[in-house]
């Protein structure tokens, strides 16, 4: 059973505009998937729809085996952790730990204190437990919101533009946090650099699914990216340029780690080429 199973999903807004058209996506347990696309592509709408907040729709949606319809909204939401774009929308309580506890308390879970502590630890904000969220920085508030969602132990995390509005440092820290979380995830974003560091698979959405595949394939698929108005990650751009300049780039890297490794490999190959001459003939330049 797939954690998220969407089949032939179509949804239009009240005024008639089509938001999603014949979308079919599935997410396995433990997978991390990015839903990328330009603004207005329906990424956010898709996430909110999965959480049962956009009805009626045509097609089928199932989360952790539960079919989503008018009556099963609450049931489906028990398995989902939806992170909103603006953390202020999502923080209700006077202290951080109380806010993180909000979900577990409402769902009647056991060991609320333990859950809260673990959630705070997994996003690195245990020291903020007694602080007032109102006063925290935007980046910290996002982490509080994530902790609040993690504390509910959902089967799948739905993150709506998690890196938007963050300064570079906070963004980098958040990416590290998301990498470290071992949970099924669907991230809606247009920040491909961040997505590249976190997910294995990507879905390009532009009202309908334009393309699906691995992240590695996506960073090389120039026409797909262009068609969707997306910028490839910086690393991919760099290595593409280098390949164009004549260097021996064998794989376009996705993550920074891969980039460093490939860069080192290119250097090695380049040094080797200068030593050995082109295609194995002797002599150097």
């Amino acid at each position, binding site marked *: 059973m797939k954690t998220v199973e969407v089949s032939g999903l179509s949804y239009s807004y009240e005024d008639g505009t089509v938001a999603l058209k014949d979308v079919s996506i599935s997410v396995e347990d433990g997978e991390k998937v990015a839903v990328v696309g330009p603004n207005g592509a329906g990424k956010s709408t898709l996430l909110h729809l999965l959480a049962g907040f956009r009805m009626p729709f045509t097609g089928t949606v199932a989360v952790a085996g539960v079919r989503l319809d008018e009556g099963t909204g609450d049931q489906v939401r*028990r398995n989902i952790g939806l992170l909103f774009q603006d953390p202020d929308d999502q923080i209700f309580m006077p202290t951080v730990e109380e806010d993180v506890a909000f979900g577990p308390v409402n769902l009647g879970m056991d060991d609320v204190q333990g859950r809260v502590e673990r959630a705070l630890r997994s996003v690195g904000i245990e020291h903020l437990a007694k602080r007032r969220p109102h006063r925290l920085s935007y980046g910290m508030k996002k982490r509080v919101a994530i902790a609040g969602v993690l504390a509910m132990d959902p089967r799948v995390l739905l993150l709506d533009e998690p890196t938007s509005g963050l300064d570079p440092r906070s963004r980098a820290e958040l990416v590290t946090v998301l990498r470290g979380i071992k949970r099924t995830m669907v991230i809606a974003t247009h920040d491909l650099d961040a997505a590249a560091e976190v997910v294995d698979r990507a879905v390009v959405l532009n009202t309908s699914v334009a393309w699906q595949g691995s992240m590695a394939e996506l960073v090389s698929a120039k026409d797909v990216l262009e068609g969707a108005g997306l910028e490839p990650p910086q690393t991919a751009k760099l290595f593409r340029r280098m390949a164009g300049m004549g260097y021996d780039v064998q794989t376009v890297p996705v993550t920074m780690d891969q980039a460093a490794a490939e860069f080192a490999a290119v250097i090695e190959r380049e040094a080797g080429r200068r030593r050995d001459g082109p295609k194995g003939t002797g002599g150097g330049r």
Partner: protein
Amino acid sequence: MLVAHVRGHRIRAEELDEYARGSWLVRLDARAKLVGVLVFVVATALLTETRLVLASLALSVAFAAMSQVPPRHLAKAYLGALPFILVASASVFLFAGAERGVDMWARTSSCVLALLVLASGTETFDLFSGLRRLHVPAIMTTLLMLTYKFVLVMADEMARMTVARRARGFGGGRSLLDRRGLRLLSYTAGMVFVRSSDRADRTYEALKARGFDKEMRPMRATRVGALDGVFIAWFATSSALLLVMQLGVAG
């Protein structure tokens, strides 16, 4: 007889919660604090004998002093409530004599002070939570909590818009006849409302997404302890004594 309204809520709401941190009052159960202070306020409102009214005021001041709430904060808050008190006291003073005027001032001040100490010594959320546990309907207390949350956000927005307005050269009108002034004022107010409908819907989704179901429940349910008992007993006894003496005098 025009009275200038000083009520401007200059104390920003979030500061209230800051003061709560410093006081031993925070450790008490909100229900106990509410019951104790309310009993005191009701009793005080029934007093007309001057000596008793002054006694009540003395108790109120003592409460304030012992509460460890910064006096400056209480003074500022008291000033906010002053206009109506002054008008009432002054007119009573003029028409029914000095003693009655003093009674009026002392009685209203005693009540206001006690309530301000209660508010300053309690987390706002706990205050509303306490009301809920005292059987105020859930829809009311949930509305109170959510409204308070939104007030914090919107007050910031309003302040930012006012600054933006001032930066563009408009400070404030001179009188009601200043139509442009009033119009700008109401447009600022209008802008705050327009975005709030979406904010409300997003908040609803965020609440449901974390399992909200009619109640805003706190993490730990506080229990009434010995200290709470002492608190209530103190206010109950002193209030009862004052009332008995009042009834004795009135005959």
